[in-house]
């Protein structure tokens, strides 16, 4: 019985071949956990790790009987939750994967909608609701048979914790999207359900009595921007220790008295979100510490890694345009059509006649993606390196092998794909002497500003870009760069890949799409901007969705290989 690719091999057959299940069982004989057979019953002990408890390997695990009726309602009393308790049921590996992928799709949608629309507006809310409904997650209280969507929501959240606890960037991303999702769900919760939800979530917010409210009516109304007029009798007001209402009191948006904040219901959301963020942050840190134990489970390791690096969209490895670029065009293309990351790599290469490994990978693969052939690439790099007084023989021995390797002509012969924006932003940050990475992510804002000034971006454009960078919307910042350098109001695409930038740029410069606007871009007054956003966001989202499907197929193919 071969054991090397056992983990992957076990996934090969989707659960009908009893021989396969026995094979899998035998592989895991050393761990006493999965005593029971059956191809579908896998003990999801990892969740015990997530809660910070020691991993428990129990003896014979009885499959939980299906919950019926009231029992189901009791286990998930609300359409939203704080994910305080990890799930403890058994699920199959198939379901494990599907739940993870679905939730990832949901969170990516949350992210995109959050950047394309103003959060909280009607359009945003309805789009988000549609997404959630499509993916069959829970969101509204009053619907029938909420058990399955709520259960899905619960389990998928915990699965993604495993994938997204691993680095500061991943954690931040995960927390941000989960918060936006929770904020939305809370916003559609009916008022009478809020109290019971808070109680069930063990949040100790005391609503104050009528008399207490009356004593402070003037002050509470004067402090809260969300209260419209003297309707205090209808509002719940909560008394919370001031330190728990940081975001409210720091901006003087709440009435403080003797160390307590008197928070009307409308403002409770901010506090709840803070609580949620703090708890989730702690939980992720705990999960990260327990992760090695989970990662040693070879069933899960590939999936988790792939999830956290999953790129949604084209990979630009198909070179339909191979050979259409000539080497002497590269200098001018670098200023006209390259995204800033590649522009700076090209400049560094020309100036130093050298690039370190990270830069060679990122830039070399990009060039492949825009159409350089292997022969051209070899010539390009050699010419440049020789200028740096490198010995031609040394180049042939050392560097040319690597270039051929990245084209898939050596070793494993994998045809490496050019890096996506996400990959560049999240992995392998540059150090001193490196020029790779994403300038919007990895450059100091002052240096970025100078760089943009040298690229002749207008001060207005620069400040918009810097604001986006501050909000960690790096790819949108790059889109803005595109718009400024190509003199268009709206780039018309949602940037995910440097080669996409190049393709779109060429399209604009060589005619084809009539995006060029006559007038000079105005100071982007707010209404206009959102209108434009919605017009193009829907097309962007549509293209995103179609490419989402493309990649999800890729994900499933990966596992069925």
């Amino acid at each position: 019985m071969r054991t090397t690719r056992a983990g992957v091999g076990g996934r090969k057959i989707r659960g009908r071949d009893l021989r396969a299940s026995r094979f899998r069982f035998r592989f895991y004989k050393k761990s006493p956990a999965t005593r029971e057979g059956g191809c579908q019953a896998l003990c999801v002990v990892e969740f015990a790790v997530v809660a910070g408890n020691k991993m428990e390997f129990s003896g014979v695990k009885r499959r939980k009987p299906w919950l019926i009726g009231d029992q189901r309602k009791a286990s998930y009393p609300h359409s939203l939750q704080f994910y305080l308790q990890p799930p403890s049921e058994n699920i199959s590996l198939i379901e494990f994967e599907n739940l993870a992928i679905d939730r990832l799709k949901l969170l990516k949608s949350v992210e995109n909608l959050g950047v394309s629309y103003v959060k909280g507006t009607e359009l945003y809310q309805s789009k988000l609701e549609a997404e959630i409904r499509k993916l069959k997650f829970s969101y509204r209280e009053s619907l029938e048979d909420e058990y399955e969507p709520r259960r899905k929501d619960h389990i998928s959240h915990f699965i993604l914790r495993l994938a997204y606890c691993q680095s500061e960037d991943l954690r931040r991303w995960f927390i941000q999207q989960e918060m936006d999702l929770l904020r939305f769900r809370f916003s559609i919760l009916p008022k009478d359900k809020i109290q019971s939800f808070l109680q069930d979530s063990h949040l100790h917010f005391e609503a104050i009595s009528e008399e207490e409210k009356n004593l402070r009516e003037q002050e509470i109304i004067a402090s809260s921007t969300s209260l419209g007029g003297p309707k205090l009798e209808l509002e719940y007001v909560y008394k919370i220790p001031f330190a728990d209402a940081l975001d409210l009191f720091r901006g003087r948006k709440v009435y403080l008295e003797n160390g307590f904040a008197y928070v009307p219901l409308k403002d409770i959301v901010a506090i709840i979100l803070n609580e949620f963020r703090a708890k989730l942050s702690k939980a992720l840190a705990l999960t990260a510490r327990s992760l090695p134990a989970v990662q040693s489970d070879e069933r899960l390791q590939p999936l988790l890694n792939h999830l956290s690096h999953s790129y949604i969209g084209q990979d630009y490895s198909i070179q339909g345009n191979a050979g259409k670029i000539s080497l002497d065009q590269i200098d001018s293309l670098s200023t006209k059509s390259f995204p800033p990351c590649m522009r700076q790599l090209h400049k560094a290469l020309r100036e130093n006649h050298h690039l370190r490994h990270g830069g060679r990978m990122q830039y070399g693969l990009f060039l492949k993606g825009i159409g350089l052939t292997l022969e051209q690439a070899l010539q390009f790099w050699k010419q440049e390196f020789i200028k740096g007084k490198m010995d031609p023989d040394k180049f042939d021995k050392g560097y040319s092998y690597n270039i051929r390797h990245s084209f898939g002509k050596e070793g494993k012969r994998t045809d490496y794909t050019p890096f996506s924006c996400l990959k560049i932003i999240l992995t392998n940050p540059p150090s001193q002497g490196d020029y790779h990475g994403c300038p919007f992510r990895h450059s100091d804002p002052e240096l970025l500003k100078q760089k943009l000034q040298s690229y002749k971006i207008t001060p207005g454009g620069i400040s918009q870009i810097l604001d986006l960078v501050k909000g960690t919307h790096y790819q949108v910042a790059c889109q803005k760069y595109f718009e400024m350098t190509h003199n268009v109001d709206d780039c018309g695409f949602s940037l995910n890949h440097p080669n996409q930038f190049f393709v779109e740029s060429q399209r604009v410069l060589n005619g084809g799409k009539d995006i060029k606007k006559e007038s000079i871009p105005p100071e982007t007054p707010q209404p206009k901007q959102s209108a434009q956003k919605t017009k193009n966001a829907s097309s962007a989202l549509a293209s995103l969705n179609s490419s989402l499907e493309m990649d999800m197929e890729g994900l499933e193919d990966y596992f069925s290989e």
Partner: protein
Amino acid sequence: MEPFDPAELPELLKLYYRRLFPYAQYYRWLNYGGVVKNYFQHREFSFTLKDDIYIRYQSFNNQSDLEKEMQKMNPYKIDIGAVYSHRPNQHNTVKLGAFQAQEKELVFDIDMTDYDDVRRCCSSADICSKCWTLMTMAIRIIDRALKEDFGFKHRLWVYSGRRGVHCWVCDESVRKLSSAVRSGIVEYLSLVKGGQDVKKKVHLSENVHPFVRKSISIIKKYFEGYALVGQDILENKESWDKILALVPETPMHNDLQQNFQKHHSSLQRWEYLKKAASQCPSNIKNEKCGPWLEWEIMLQYCFPRLDINVSKGINHLLKSPFSVHPKTGRISVPIDLQKVDQFDPFAVPTISSICHELDAIFTSEVEKEENQAESDIKHRTRDYKKTSLAPYVKVFEQFLENLDKSRKGELLKKSDLQKDF
């Protein structure tokens, strides 16, 4: 008062640290009843010695250790830092990353130089009785908020020795507050925003928060005396132009320009401004009609200006009470909150004056006293009482009494909960 000569500091400090510094009370404060083990031992102090030699991460075992070291090193300045996870003087032996600041009082530093754009009498390090009112108002406004809004009970206000005041909030829960909450508190207390390139630094919204309203009531009590008489902010065209820079360009602006000429004092001009501001036509909605404009001007000229960096860091070092200011010689003395209006920074004793007082008393007493050894000890424990430092130490002792009372109350509560009889 004996004039202060900085060159005499080494000698004066020697005497001060041997006979006058109130070690017992000081230790009583920072030990906080000894409830938490090693609280005093893990406290960081920093000393500035002669010739500007600065040493950090000083820590002491107990009161007598503190006394001995201070007498030995004769620091020109003493700063108090945070309570750390380990003894600060052993921080180099601790594993990297394990040495952390854990607790500290919430502190505020209000400095007169931050008001240079709105005071006409002095600038930078200078102060006078006219502009000192700014500190009086600051203390009243901030203290009210700390007490009534935040519920902080143990607040020690201290004169910094030259041009400002410090506040130490010492409640048990406050010492544990995170940096984020401390920043939030400063933000809550801030209204004047912008540096040199910002003309109008206060903007009020239609909804006026109770904190702002109560602060304005306090300022109103002092505004006439301080701003209109003392500072005379509408005295002449040069000075009232600065006020007009805060008034939006409207018919009212021109109206004020013209009419200010016709009046003869700041008082009159201010009355006129108030009337004009409240009578603006109802069709101009966005310009501040009603009292907002008047309030914004008052706030820009009188509202306290805090330095957020002092307050937000748990490991920030701040000048210690009863420390000496090396340039003025004044002792950093506690301010009696009951008598804030009467506090006079120029009446605060300097190190030379109290040393001089001590000398005068000592020589006369030695003539009387027969048992020298006994008198030595007696002197050490009561010397400060014979000098002008005494009333300030009394204020400090009252503060310590309150801390003790609270602590006893807490312990009682806890033991009740645990049903310890």
